[in-house]
C-alpha cells in the first residue's frame, strides 16, 4: 500500500519538477551561438510573464510580434535587431510587455505603411526603456496603447526630408502615456501626440528634427515639463487641446519664417510657466488660444519674443522677462484681447519715483516698426536703423498707430531673475 506520506512526497517532487521547468521556460536566452538562436523562436516558446534575454549580436528576422502578456524582452550588450531597410522590426500586441536594452535599426522607408522600429498596438501598460533606435522611419509608435511608459530611449535618424522620415515617438489614441528622459534627433517630429490625453512628457531632449520637436493635437490635459527643444526645423507646435501644462522647458534656435519656438493654436486653458525661449525667429506664437496663463518665462535674444494674434483671447502674461529681442510683442490688430502685467522689458525706459519696483509710466511693447514690418516685410532690413529709432520714439510720444490697449501698466523695474 502506498502511504499518504509517499503520495505527498511524490506529489511535491512532481510540483517542484514542474516549477523548475516553468522557471527554465520563464528565462529564455537568445544567443547567436545557440541553443536558441532567434528571437522569433524565443517568442514562440515564451509563456505569459516570461523573460527573454537577447545576447549581443545582429538579428535579421521577419517582423517580430510579441503576443504573450507580461513578457520582458531584454537585450544584453546591445543586440541589434536589423530591419535591413525592408520591414517593421518589433510589434507588441499584448499587455504588460517590457522592451529594454535593444538596438532597433533600419526599418527603411515605406510610402504605404508607417513602419516603426517598435510598435505597440492595442495593448496596455507597456514599458519601452533604455533602447536605441537608429534610422527607422518611425521610432516608437504607440497605437491605441494605454498607460505605457517610454523612458530613456535614444532615437536618432538621418532623414533627408519631411516626406521620407517619420516621427521619433508617435502616440495615436494612447492616453496616460509617460514619455521621459528620451533623446530624439533627426526624425520628422521628435515627439508626436494625437488623440492622447492625460500624458506626461518630461526631461526629454528633442533636437534637429525635420519638422517639429514636439507636435500634439487633440490631446487634452497633458503635462510637458523640463524638456529641451532645440534647432528643430519648425520648432514646436501644439494645437486643438484643452488644459495643458507647459512648464520649465527650453525652446531654442528655431530659425526661419515658419519656425516658432512654441506655436499654440486653438489651445483652451492651461499654464505656460518658467520656460526659456531663446534665439528663435519667433519665441511664442499665439493664435486662437484662450485662458492661458503665461507667467515667469524668459524670452531672450529672439527675433520676435511673442506674436499674439487678435484671435487669442483672455490670456495673461505676467512676470515674464523680455531681453535682447528684436521685437518684444507683435500683433495683427489695434485692439488687444490679452493682458500684459508686471513683466520686465529691457526696452522700458521709464522711472520709479515711489520706489515700489514698478515703473510709474506704462510700457507699450508693440513698436511702430513691428507694425511696419508686419505690413511690409522687406523693411526688416532697416532693423536698428537710426531712422527707425526716430520713428519709434515719435510714436511712443504720440501713439497713433500702435495698439494702445496692448500695454503693460505695471512694468517691473528690475529683472525678476
Amino acid at each position, binding site marked *: 500500500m502506498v502511504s499518504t506520506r509517499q503520495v505527498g512526497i511524490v506529489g511535491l517532487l512532481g510540483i517542484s519538477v514542474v516549477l523548475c521547468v516553468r522557471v527554465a521556460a520563464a528565462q529564455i536566452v537568445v544567443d547567436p551561438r545557440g541553443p536558441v538562436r532567434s528571437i522569433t523562436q524565443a517568442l514562440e516558446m515564451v509563456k505569459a510573464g516570461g523573460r527573454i534575454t537577447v545576447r549581443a549580436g545582429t538579428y535579421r528576422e521577419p517582423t517580430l510580434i510579441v503576443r504573450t502578456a507580461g513578457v520582458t524582452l531584454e537585450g544584453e550588450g546591445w543586440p541589434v535587431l536589423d530591419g535591413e531597410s525592408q520591414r517593421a522590426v518589433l510589434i507588441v500586441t499584448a499587455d504588460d510587455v517590457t522592451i529594454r536594452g535593444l538596438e532597433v535599426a533600419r526599418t527603411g522607408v515605406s510610402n504605404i505603411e508607417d513602419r516603426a522600429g517598435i510598435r505597440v498596438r492595442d495593448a496596455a501598460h507597456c514599458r519601452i526603456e533604455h533602447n536605441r533606435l537608429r534610422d527607422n522611419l518611425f521610432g516608437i509608435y504607440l497605437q491605441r496603447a494605454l498607460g505605457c511608459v517610454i523612458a530613456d530611449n535614444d532615437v536618432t535618424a538621418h532623414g533627408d526630408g519631411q516626406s521620407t522620415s517619420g516621427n521619433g515617438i508617435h502616440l495615436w489614441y494612447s492616453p496616460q502615456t509617460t514619455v521621459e528622459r528620451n533623446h530624439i534627433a533627426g526624425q520628422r517630429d521628435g515627439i508626436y501626440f494625437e488623440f492622447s490625453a492625460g500624458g506626461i512628457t518630461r526631461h526629454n531632449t528633442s533636437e534637429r528634427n525635420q519638422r517639429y520637436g514636439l507636435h500634439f493635437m487633440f490631446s487634452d490635459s497633458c503635462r510637458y515639463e523640463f524638456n529641451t527643444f532645440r534647432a528643430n526645423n519648425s520648432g514646436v507646435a501644439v494645437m486643438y487641446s484643452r488644459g495643458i501644462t507647459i512648464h520649465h522647458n527650453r525652446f531654442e534656435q528655431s530659425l526661419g519664417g515658419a519656425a516658432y519656438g512654441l506655436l499654440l493654436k486653438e489651445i483652451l486653458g492651461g499654464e505656460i510657466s518658467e520656460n526659456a525661449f531663446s534665439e528663435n*525667429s519667433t519665441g511664442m506664437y499665439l493664435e486662437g488660444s484662450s485662458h492661458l496663463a503665461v507667467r515667469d518665462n524668459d524670452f531672450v535674444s529672439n527675433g520676435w519674443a511673442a506674436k499674439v494674434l487678435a484671435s487669442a483671447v483672455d490670456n495673461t502674461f505676467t512676470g515674464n522677462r523680455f531681453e535682447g529681442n528684436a521685437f518684444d510683442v507683435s500683433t495683427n490688430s489695434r485692439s488687444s484681447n490679452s493682458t500684459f502685467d508686471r513683466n520686465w522689458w529691457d526696452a522700458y525706459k521709464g522711472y520709479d519715483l515711489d520706489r515700489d519696483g514698478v515703473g510709474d509710466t506704462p510700457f507699450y511693447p508693440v513698436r511702430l516698426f513691428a507694425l511696419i514690418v508686419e505690413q511690409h516685410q522687406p523693411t526688416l532690413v532697416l532693423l536698428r536703423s537710426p531712422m527707425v529709432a526716430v520713428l519709434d520714439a515719435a510714436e511712443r510720444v504720440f501713439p497713433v498707430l500702435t495698439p494702445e490697449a496692448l500695454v503693460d501698466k505695471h512694468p517691473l523695474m528690475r529683472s525678476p531673475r
Partner: protein
Amino acid sequence: MTTTRLVVVAGIRDMAGNRWLAAYFAAFVVVAQSLFWFGGTGPQVVLSLLNVVLMVVPLVSLVFGAMHVYASREFVELLLAQPVRRRDLFTGLYLGLALPLTAAFVLGAGIPVLMNRGFGANGIAVLALLVAGAGLTFSCVAIATWIALRTDDRLKGIGMALAAWLATSLLYDGAVLAFASAFGDWPIEKPMLAMMVTNPVDLARVLVLAQVDASALMGYTGALFERTFGSALGSLVALGALALWCVGPWFLAARRFDARDF
C-alpha cells in the same frame, strides 16, 4: 612709397596731438564703459554701440575729415613744390587721416569691451561692429576728402559734408521706408537689398545685424533673406561692398587731387 610713408607719419604725428581726436577716442571709451556700468550684457552693449557707431562715426569722419583736408592745404602746397608724385602724396594724406580716426574708434570702443570681457560669446558680433566702424571711417574719410577737394569754399564744403552725413545716416533710410510702403505690393526684396548695398552706413548696420539679429532676419518668410543673412556669403558680400565704398570715393578724390590746380 617713401613719400607716402613720410606723409602718413607726419599726419599721424599731427593727429596725435589733436584735441578733437582725443575727445573722439575718450567719448567711445566713456560710452562703452558706461554701457557696461549700467548693467548691459554683451549683446545689448553691441547694439547700443551700434547706434552710436551709425550716427557718430560718419558724422565725425565726414566733418572732421573735410576740416582736416582744408587745414592741410598749405602743407600740401608746400610738399607739391618738392619733386614728389602726387598720388603718393595723396595716399599719405588720406591714410594719415583715416588711420588715426580708425584707431581712435577701434581702441575707444574695443578697450572697454576687452576690459569687461565682452568678447567671449559675442566675439563675432563685437568683431563685426569694429570692422563695420573701421570700414565706415575709411569710406567716410574718402568721401570727405573728395568733397573738400571739389569745393574751395570751406563753409560750403563742411556744409556738404554735413548734408552727406544727414543723407546717409537718416534720410536714406527714410526714403527706403517710403519706397517700401509705396511699392509694398510688388516683389521688392531684391531692390531693398540693392538699396542696402548703395549706402555705406546701411552696409555697416547690416554687417552687425547679421551677427546680432540673425534670428529676426531669418524670421522673414522669403528665402532671400535667409540665404543672405543666414550664411557667411551675405556678410562677405556686405564687406566687399563696404570695401568698394572705400575704394570708389578714394579713387574719385585721388583723381581730383591729381588734376587739381593748387
